[in-house]
């Protein structure tokens, strides 16, 4: 099963540190030494604020990802434990952006040997960064982001399932 990052709206304070961490991890240089007018800001994680809550939106690395289905050139493909986006193959058709039910894929401008290309941009679990682990998760000040590794979902489900059984058992007649 794929690994993925997920936010918890109960802990998210909407500070957007995750968005900055994402950009810095992928770019590699200090954000405070960069002229804000010189570069564009393309995080792969987005903080959404509504009247009642703040929450992150990022790629869910879906098992049967609709973005993979609609990509006409195979730039999006299922990897061993995530959904891979090969930017060099991307033709900028934007269908993945339209297909994603979460709005987690957006388009960005990249400069490729002097020419500007518009390609898709989505969470890659920081696979191609120096740290190699999701920067948003490690930099979130409230631990609102969790990196679900291979067995994490199964463990979370097993825990809840067991608790359900224990709760039912607790009201067995003849017991407290």
């Amino acid at each position: 099963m794929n690994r993925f990052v997920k936010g918890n709206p109960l802990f998210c304070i909407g500070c957007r540190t995750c968005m900055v961490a994402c950009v810095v991890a992928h770019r590699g240089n200090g954000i405070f030494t960069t002229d804000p007018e010189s570069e564009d800001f393309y995080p792969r994680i987005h903080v959404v604020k509504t009247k009642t809550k703040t929450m992150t939106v990022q790629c869910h690395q879906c098992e049967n990802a609709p973005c993979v289905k609609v990509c006409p050139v195979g730039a999006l493909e299922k990897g061993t434990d995530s959904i891979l986006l090969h930017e060099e193959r991307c033709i900028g058709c934007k269908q993945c952006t339209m297909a994603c039910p979460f709005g987690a894929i957006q388009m960005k401008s990249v400069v490729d040997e002097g020419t500007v290309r518009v390609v898709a941009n989505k969470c890659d679990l920081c696979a191609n960064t120096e740290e190699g682990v999701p920067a948003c998760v490690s930099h979130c000040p409230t631990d609102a982001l969790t990196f679900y590794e291979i067995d994490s979902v199964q463990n979370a489900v097993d825990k809840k399932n067991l608790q359900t059984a224990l709760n039912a058992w607790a009201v067995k007649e003849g017991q407290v």
Partner: protein
Amino acid sequence: MNQFVYCDVNLCIGCGMCERQCIMSHYDLKMTEVKLNDPLQRARCKTYRQPELKAAVHCKQCDNASCMAACPVGAISKRDDKMIFIDESLCIGCRECVLACPFGAVRMAPVADGRVVATKCDLCVDTKAGTPACVKGCPKKALTLMNDETLKAWLLHKQEHSA
């Protein structure tokens, strides 16, 4: 009100027959063909047999289901006005329902065509028998399909007992 399978823990012995019946019913297998460790043979319920815990956990077919609310593509919906149903052909495998279910009743599992989809108890709605196999197959009659009628009877029994 949605129908659902209820496990009476006073009667349950944690034998796991319900899991086997579930597999036999959904895949049209004989008891001897059931392999509990085959990921393609998915039981939709889970049993516990420990010294101090004997129970089966099924999807509760919640009337305001968290899984249904969490699904971004509408793969989970109320069916036949009596249950919450996952349409596996629409499932994109995003796992939102799995994480949303407070009972851990929804699980991801592989299907024959190589996809990985969310699965949960479907009251055997698309099987030959059309009614929950686990309920019929429980050796202790610990499982009941709760509908308006059976729930009423169950409540009445409890109320009379406590009066």
